[in-house]
């Protein structure tokens, strides 16, 4: 299946990768601070107690980006899992219809979710919601990242829905090529 907005999804995945590297960096700095203290104390100096205030909180929010910004990309690569054992045995025409139904349900769910998340972001903005703990992160930012991830996923589902619908009507056999590539070999 071709995704016309692929650069967008790949961009999301890159941002997810950056978030992942940022988490790694933050935690490593924290650990190196402790290692340094150990060494100082070993040589009779006072511990510096270097630590990143609110580190775990920030890392916990970066996680939203690391996982949800990559979710549309994962979908395009067939990385979101499903049970195909039963549908594999259905003739092509009804199977195409089933595929359209399932994509419709998925699309409806992400649309509702995106709508609700948008409401959440606006609400957090209206009430100036901030996180508990030392970093006091305004919640609208990580929530907006989650919304972005879900919006990208909605777009990818929409693309899949349209092209599946077109093929289901015009040429259903092209929908299911004989060898279903496993997600791993796709990347």
């Amino acid at each position, binding site marked *: 299946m071709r995704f016309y907005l692929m650069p967008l999804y790949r961009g999301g995945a890159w941002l997810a990768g950056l978030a992942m590297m940022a988490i790694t960096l933050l935690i490593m700095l924290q650990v190196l601070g402790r290692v340094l203290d150990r060494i100082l104390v070993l040589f009779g100096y006072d511990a510096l107690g270097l630590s990143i205030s609110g580190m775990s909180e920030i890392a916990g929010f970066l996680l939203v980006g690391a996982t*949800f910004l990559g979710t549309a*990309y994962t979908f395009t690569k067939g990385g*979101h899992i499903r049970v195909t*054992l039963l*549908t594999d045995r259905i003739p092509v025409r009804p199977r195409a219809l089933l595929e359209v139904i399932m994509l419709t349900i998925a699309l409806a769910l992400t649309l509702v979710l995106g709508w609700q998340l948008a409401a959440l972001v606006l609400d957090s903005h209206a009430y100036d919601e901030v996180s508990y703990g030392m970093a006091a992160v305004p919640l609208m930012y990580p929530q907006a990242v989650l919304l972005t991830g879900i919006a990208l996923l909605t777009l990818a589902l929409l693309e899949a829905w349209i092209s599946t619908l077109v093929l289901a009507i015009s040429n259903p056999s092209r929908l299911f090529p004989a060898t279903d590539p496993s997600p791993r070999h796709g990347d």
Partner: protein
Amino acid sequence: MLTLAITLTIALVLLLGGGLWVAFSLMALGYIAIDGFTGLPPGPIFGSDIWSASYGWELTALPMFIWMGEILFRSGLADDLFKALAPWLDKLPGRLLHTNIFGSGLFAAVSGSSAATCATVGRMTLPELERRGYDTRLAIGTLASSATLGLLIPPSIILIVYGIATEQSIARLFMAGILPGLMLMALFVGYLMLWSWRHPTRMPEADAPLPLRQRLRETGRILPLLLLITGVIGSIYGGLASPTEAATIGVVLSLIIARLNAGLDMTAFRESLFGAIQTSSMIALILAGASFLTTAMGFTQLPGQLAQWIAAMNLPPAILLVVLTLFFVALGCFLDGISVVVLTTSIVMPMVEAAGFDLIWFGIYLVIVVEMSQITPPVGFNLFVIQGMTGRDLLDIARATLPFFLLMLVGIVLLSLFPGIATLLPSMMGNT
């Protein structure tokens, strides 16, 4: 209540069987449960719950461990490990398949989650085992089941959740998990040996025997991997890192080793990162769906009422344990383990106490039952991880894992007959 249970079961079968993605199936189920059975508007609960399930410090360990697995997969260390171990394991029935069990047991001492254990160990062992001609289903079964040790061998997220919910000592629970973890490993090893002895034709040819000197030289290849594991475990027990932070140390050390050992370049680095993001976002979306379903169950109060129904029967302890096991296994098919614990402790714990069970012992029993939910379809996170890795179908993987599921039941029977397996080590801590 019955209508709700039946409706949800039918809906799940239709949606999952019809090929709806697992994460969306769980979300749809939660939506149906709230909309149809509570009189509350599902929309706002949906949004707020997915948000609350999407962030959190303790969750960060999972993508880190997955990334570590992706790096190790590209490090050449798996090949080294197998080359080094092969000559020594030649006489042992089951041979290199034991690496799944021991690898998971060892890794469980680093990781508090079984999905992370499964992803990291499996990324190294599964492709290698397949390449060497081992029975794929047996490889999958040993991996999926041994990875559940991540929850039993400390550190363990679920023991922490249980300890906090029931106000039991986490330190004692950690101690209590060690022997049962070893017991399960022994059961898995025993089964593997028995199977290989019964089916010699389904095992690959052994490598030609090596002279001792060369054997020792090959063994040296394990050194980088040993350094890695020592580094990660050492960082926790040496007080340099929390179990969550240790995952990141694993990533950094793996990067260094992969660079030195296999000349990991930018392309391989990028591939490892994107591979990790794919698996992590797949798991994260399912976790979010599972969380929404759990919340929906909380609103409908279905699990609580089922538990109340059991409590009302006033069963004798032994029967109660059997009924509870069935109850937890059934819930574990639909919910993840931590949710099962959180949703049911309020009602289950009083009856367990009244029946006179030791609460530390019960925690270990509960973890094993909950571990089993990691490998039962349709909602079993180890199965999801393996499907993500191999592309095989969920039900196929579940079937490969079934014998090990039964072995874990045997483990529960043993634990019930000999409670000391769990209570011996904590009782040696004193100060009770």
